[in-house]
């Protein structure tokens, strides 16, 4: 690899795109927005984690999960359990019949903390669980399904059913989970009040930092041979299999990766919003997450971030001004992205903006490098080729 030096990488086209995103998230938005709006952007960004995972899982490997909310929720619940235990000191809960346990347990006649809550006294365990619990569930689901070659639509429907099951369970077991209200009234993280403006601003930057970590992990994966195999698997699963790869293992890996990202996003969501509830796990929430990824461009990890930001910002904007129009807009977005722009924003960017950039910076136009009909793929380890934000032409009508 020629571009090993980080400085050089930042000067490359891909590096510049990352810099632009960093500039937007670290400098422009914090300067332009008041803490209240910035906090909302932070909330949108937590969905970007899910969207990045979906790019890897759905865009690249062709596995559409309609249950990403499950992993988002699990990560979020792990965080919420830790914070709730911290908030439920015996002093703070002195009026309860059993002081020292979360308030909703007391209302439900629980007299001691359930065993699975105990470990969440520990912050390090919590951090581990935020990634570990979603990954473990993803592994179990993935192992059961992918080794038996369940894929495509079937996988989508089963993950959807799992989202439904978990929602009903959490709502029904309210003594252990807080029920439909969720786990609320979270105040401090290791003694640090997360409700103040300063804390919210700091959490925003933590969120941005972790987002970039996940972006780089995703980028690393897609640029290795693994990334190419994921894409290849999507188009020619049998060829990959008969080239000696255990296709199921790769699918499990990428599904777990997406679950881990979603779990981190969920934990940050809990911190930024201040509570967690089953409504973020359910079917509707999970399908909405797919549209973040689809709008950004299902093959572009950077696009996923913009997709999550834009859809959520539009949702807030619409619901403030024209609430009854929002479902129409959202519906049209789904249909439009699928019918007219299957490559989402990243595709539009490549078609319309990049030629302008080329002219502006007098770069060699891309078309000369790869055939216009089918720009070549993904990320290559080798030298010198221009970065392709769309990463791959999505062409379902492959011969």
């Amino acid at each position, binding site marked *: 690899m020629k571009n090993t030096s980080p400085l050089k990488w930042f000067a490359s086209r891909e590096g510049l795109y990352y810099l632009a995103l960093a500039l937007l998230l670290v400098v422009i938005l914090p300067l332009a927005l008041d803490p209240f709006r910035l906090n909302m952007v932070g909330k949108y960004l937590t969905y970007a984690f899910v969207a990045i995972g979906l790019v890897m899982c759905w865009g690249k490997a062709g596995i559409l999960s309609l249950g990403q909310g499950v992993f988002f929720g699990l990560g979020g619940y792990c965080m919420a359990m830790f914070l709730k235990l911290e908030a439920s000191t015996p002093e703070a809960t002195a009026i309860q019949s059993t002081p020292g346990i979360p308030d909703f347990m007391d209302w439900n006649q629980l007299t001691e903390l359930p065993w699975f809550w105990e470990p969440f006294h520990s912050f390090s365990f919590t951090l581990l669980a935020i990634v570990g619990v979603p990954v473990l569930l993803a592994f179990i689901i993935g192992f059961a399904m992918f080794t038996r070659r369940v894929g495509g639509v079937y996988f989508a429907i089963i993950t959807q059913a799992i989202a439904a099951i978990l929602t009903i369970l959490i709502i029904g077991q309210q003594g252990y989970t807080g029920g439909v209200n969720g786990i609320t009234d979270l105040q401090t993280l290791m003694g640090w009040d997360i409700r103040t403006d300063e804390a919210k601003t700091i959490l925003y930057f933590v969120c941005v930092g972790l987002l970039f970590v996940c972006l780089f992990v995703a980028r690393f994966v897609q640029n290795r041979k693994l990334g190419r195999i994921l894409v*290849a698997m999507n188009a020619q699963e049998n060829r990959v299999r008969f080239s*000696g790869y255990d296709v199921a293992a790769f699918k499990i890996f990428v599904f777990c990766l997406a679950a881990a990202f979603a779990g981190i996003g969920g934990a940050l969501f809990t911190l930024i919003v201040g509570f967690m509830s089953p409504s973020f796990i359910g079917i509707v929430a999970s399908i909405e997450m797919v549209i973040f990824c689809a709008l950004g461009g299902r093959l572009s990890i950077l696009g996923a971030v913009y997709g999550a930001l834009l859809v959520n910002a539009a949702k807030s904007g619409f619901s403030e001004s024209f609430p009854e129009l929002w479902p129409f807009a959202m519906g049209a977005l789904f249909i439009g992205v699928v019918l007219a722009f299957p490559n989402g924003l990243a595709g539009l960017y490549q078609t319309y903006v990049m030629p302008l950039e080329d002219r502006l910076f007098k770069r060699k136009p891309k078309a000369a490098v790869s055939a216009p009909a*089918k720009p*070549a793929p993904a990320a290559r380890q080798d030298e010198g080729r221009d970065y392709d934000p769309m990463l791959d032409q999505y062409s379902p009508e492959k011969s």
Partner: protein
Amino acid sequence: MNAAKAQSKDFLLAVEGLTVSFDGFKAVDDLSFYLDPKEIRVIIGPNGAGKTTVLDLICGKTKATSGSIKFDGKELTRLKEHQIVHSGVGRKFQTPSVFEDLTVFENLEVSYPQGHSVMGALAFKRSAEVVAAVEDVAETIFLKDALEQPASLLSHGQKQWLEIGMLLIQKPDLLMLDEPVAGMSVAERKKTAELLRRITKDHTVLVIEHDMQFVGDIADRVTVMHQGKVLSEGSIEHVKSDPKVIEVYLGH
């Protein structure tokens, strides 16, 4: 048990009593045949005789209802597809299936037998060794000059060769080719025959083919299948003169 062991020592591939049925229909019915090392075997037979299914069974794409497939002492019916590949069986499909989005180089690189586990694929680096192996195979399959081309721009025949190349780079002991010259021009057929002859110096090859001219060019022995069973087996001259074969091909 002992007999079976002895056989698997003598033969590279021993298929015995192989049967598969789809909802009662036996696509392959109590089939047995044996391959010697470095042999080129061609399977012929009318449409629906079960030829492709045999390859599917050997490479694990279809699971056998009963019977055994012994390869180099290993029972393949119990292995998963990628394990079968790792034990040295390569399979080319009837329609060319290469990775259209990748270049020829990358197609071969992905097939290089290293970094096949998830972690391996994460850690895989393009070493000089890999590059050398890729260039070597590219030479063999007449695609040395096309290494940087996306596979989608190759001609139909070139894609077939590329797929053969993707098998070769895995250094398999047994190559299974399903109609490798289907849809090729005359010139391409000739080159493919030459390619196969080169390959057989180090490989055992099992081919399904319709083109009798081509079969005559390459085959050591020919197995004729009909309705899931072996109808006749032997040299090309032998099976051509077998009345049962003539009956099946010309009788109806």
